[in-house]
Structures are given as C-alpha cells and as structure tokens.
C-alpha cells in the first residue's frame, strides 16, 4: 500500500541537508507552509537557498527562518514589503544574498524544471536590468531573453487536503506556487489541513497529482475553517 503520509512535522522535514535549495510556496501568507518552515527551523539545516515569491512577512514562517540565520540566499520576485523587516535588515547587513526574478519568469522557470524543459525564451525583462548577462534573441520580430529552469532539492507546499497517494487540492489564492513547485523539486513535502481517504478527492478536481508529492503531513484545520466551511476572520482570531 502506498502511503506518503507521515505523522510528525519532524519526519516531514527529516533529511533536508545544509546547503539545500528549498522552494517555499505561498504568496504573502496565503499558501505559506508555516508549519513546515517552523519544523525546518527546528530541524536546523542551514546555508539554505530559498526560492519563494516573497522573502518573509512579519516574524513567522520564512521570516523566522531568515531571522534564525539559516538562509544564505533568497531567489524571489518581491522581497520588499511593508512587513519584510527581517529580510530588509539582513539584506542591508549583507547577511543574505538576493536574486530578483520577475514573478512570471520565476513561475515559468519553476514550471520548466518540473516539465523537463531545458530553457525557454521569454519576453519579460527585455531592455531592463534583468536582461544583463542573458542571451537575447529576436523571434518573429519580437525580442526574448533566454531563461533556464529552476530546480530544487525540496519543495515545502501548503495545500488544503491530500489523500495517501499525495493527490492535492488547494484553497482559493493559496494555490499560487504550490503546483509548480511540487513538480520542480526532487522531494516535495506538503502540509495539509487533513488527509482524506483515497477516492475522496474528485479526480477531475485534483490540482497536484500525487506523482509530484513525496511526503504529506496533516497539521489540522486552518483557523478560519470549521469542518471545511469558512467561518470568518473573527473565528480565527
């Protein structure tokens, strides 16, 4: 019997090595796998390269991992936010490297890694600082830059529910980078509200097929849901 579920967060993040490249899902805090990131921080791996859209919000999740000094480099599209003070301080102190990638190129590079594409031509960034050092080519009269896939050793993803084969469904804009990161990483680790029985997910509505998932850990229902029904922000606070 196939079962990708593990009981504890510590098991979910076991084996992540110092120096690993780790993709972290989420756009802001929506879909941000906070429980897995906290477990990774406790696990202790350091010198990590993080691939994520943002570079941490507030003091939790990725921000806490940064604050703990575990991150060598961040590859992201949008580090600077109203609540990115942890990253901002580290960056200004020269304590973390930054590679800025336009969000669509970031997404497409991640997608290319999962889909076995060797490189691709994108129009985004032509004529900008992003183009420096990149190959450029004119195709059908339009200019494109050559971009390469972005692979990772691990992906940490937050989804709504999984079955034991690792099939995933997400919730609303929490989906964001989860599906493409799951496909791009050598080992994909997913936190879900709950693990449902095999067959409980509609095969037409599975967003990430289990082929892309290695470990699943249930972390309990998000506070603004009750038995899968949205109960609002007040219930959550």
């Amino acid at each position, binding site marked *: 019997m196939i079962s990708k579920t593990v009981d504890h967060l510590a098991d979910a993040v076991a084996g992540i090595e110092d120096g690993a490249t780790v993709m972290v899902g989420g756009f802001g805090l929506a879909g941000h796998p906070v429980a897995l990131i906290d477990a990774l921080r406790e696990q202790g791996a350091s010198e990590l390269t993080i691939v994520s859209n943002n570079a941490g919000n507030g003091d939790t999740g990725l921000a806490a991992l940064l604050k703990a000094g575990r991150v060598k480099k961040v590859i992201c599209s949008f580090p600077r936010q109203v609540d990115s003070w942890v990253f901002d301080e580290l960056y200004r102190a020269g304590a973390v490297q930054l590679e800025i990638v336009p969000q669509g190129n970031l997404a*497409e590079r991640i997608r290319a890694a999962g889909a076995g594409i060797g490189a691709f031509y994108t129009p985004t960034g032509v004529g900008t600082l992003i183009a420096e050092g990149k190959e450029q080519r004119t195709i059908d009269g339009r200019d494109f830059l050559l971009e390469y896939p972005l692979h990772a050793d691990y992906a940490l993803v937050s989804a709504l529910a999984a079955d034991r084969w690792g099939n995933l469904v997400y919730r609303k804009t929490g989906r964001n980078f989860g599906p493409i990161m799951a496909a791009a990483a050598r080992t994909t680790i997913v936190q879900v509200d709950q693990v449902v029985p095999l067959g409980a997910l509609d095969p037409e509505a599975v967003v990430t097929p289990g082929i892309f998932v290695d470990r699943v850990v249930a972390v309990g229902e998000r506070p603004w849901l009750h038995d899968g029904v949205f109960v*609002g922000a007040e219930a959550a606070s």
Partner: protein
Amino acid sequence: MTAGLERRALAARIAEDIAEGSIVNLGIGAPTLIADQLPAGLEIILHTENGMLGMGPAPEPSLVDPDLINAGKQPVTELAGAAYFHHADSFGMMRGGHLDICVLGAFQVSQRGDLANWHTGAPDAIPAVGGAMDLAIGAKNVWVMTDLLTRDGGSKLVDECSYPLTGKRCVSRVYTDRAVFDVAPTGFAVTEIFGGGTIDELRALTGLDLVDATSVTQEGRS
C-alpha cells in the same frame, strides 16, 4: 492651473474607459482603487496575478479570508464565475496576451511608452519587481495611473526614463491627476485635461512638446 483630480476621482475616470467584458489586471497600489469605481451592472472580470479571475471587492471585516487575497496581499472576495489557477498559468495569461488591460503605477513613463516603476536605482534600495515586468509586456493595453508630478515637482512623463526600466515601449496611455495622455508615434498626445488646465501649462510642467488631441477626443467620446 487649478488642482488636479484626486485619486478616487481619477480611478473613476479610468473606470469609465473600461468596456464591459474586459479582462483587467489592476496591479498593486493606487490602480486597485479602480475596482471600487467600476460601473455597477457592467461585468468586468478582474485578474489577479496570484491566481484568480473573477475577483470581487474587499469583504466585510468579519468575512476576511486569509486564503483570498489580491496581488497587494489585501483581502478580496470571489464573484460567481471566478476561477483559480496556479502561478505559471496566471503569468501565462499575461505573457500570452490574454489580458485586455492592465493599469500600473509609475515612477516615469517615456514618450516612446517605456515604463519605469520598480526600482529607483538608489544604492540602498531593496529591488522588488513582482509581476510588474510581466504585466508591462503582456497586457494588450498597458495604462498607467499616476500623479503627473513627483513630490519634488518633477515630471513623471519624460523624454527618456532615467530610472531602471520595467518594460520598453509598452505603455499606451497615461492617466494623471492633471490630464490623460496617449502614447502616440510622435510622443505624448493630450486627450483630456482636468480641472481647467491648458496644454501650455502641461507643456511647462513636463518640459515636453505635447500634441494637443483634446478636440479629437471630445468628438470621439461624444
């Protein structure tokens, strides 16, 4: 010259130019104000880069859903007819030319339609581009919403951008608090002036050789 349009009024002015059925991305910041100014009863479909079409207005505080946010990470709602998708699909929609309109903020826009809105180039700035470059080159119509002048009184409409570019020759129209400018082959063409200003005042403020297209537009909009 009288004072220009305040932001909400400018957002409403832009909303007037969005036809029913358009698929529109409002980026982050000021352009998101346009969402609240869209004419009631017209169906305009809002795209947000973080994976949604059919985005609705901000919810009541008690209905804020942390899983339902826009590109600016503000809480939004879901309309009937909405759809969710992942980031590669979302940016494929932009890059593939499927959005009718996006409205972005700007530091500078050049006469050729070059846009600078992501980086001041200041040595201590932390660069953050987000989806701006993808939107700039992707939408069929890229409009800018901005004050005409910087806080220091400089013009945001320029002959050549001095800030790092977001995209080249991508902007087709600029809505400012003082006037609306089309990016024409010959440079900026003023199609509408707010608050009783004149084309010569705008020329003085921008230092640019602006084409006066206001009469054409008035006929066109009749």
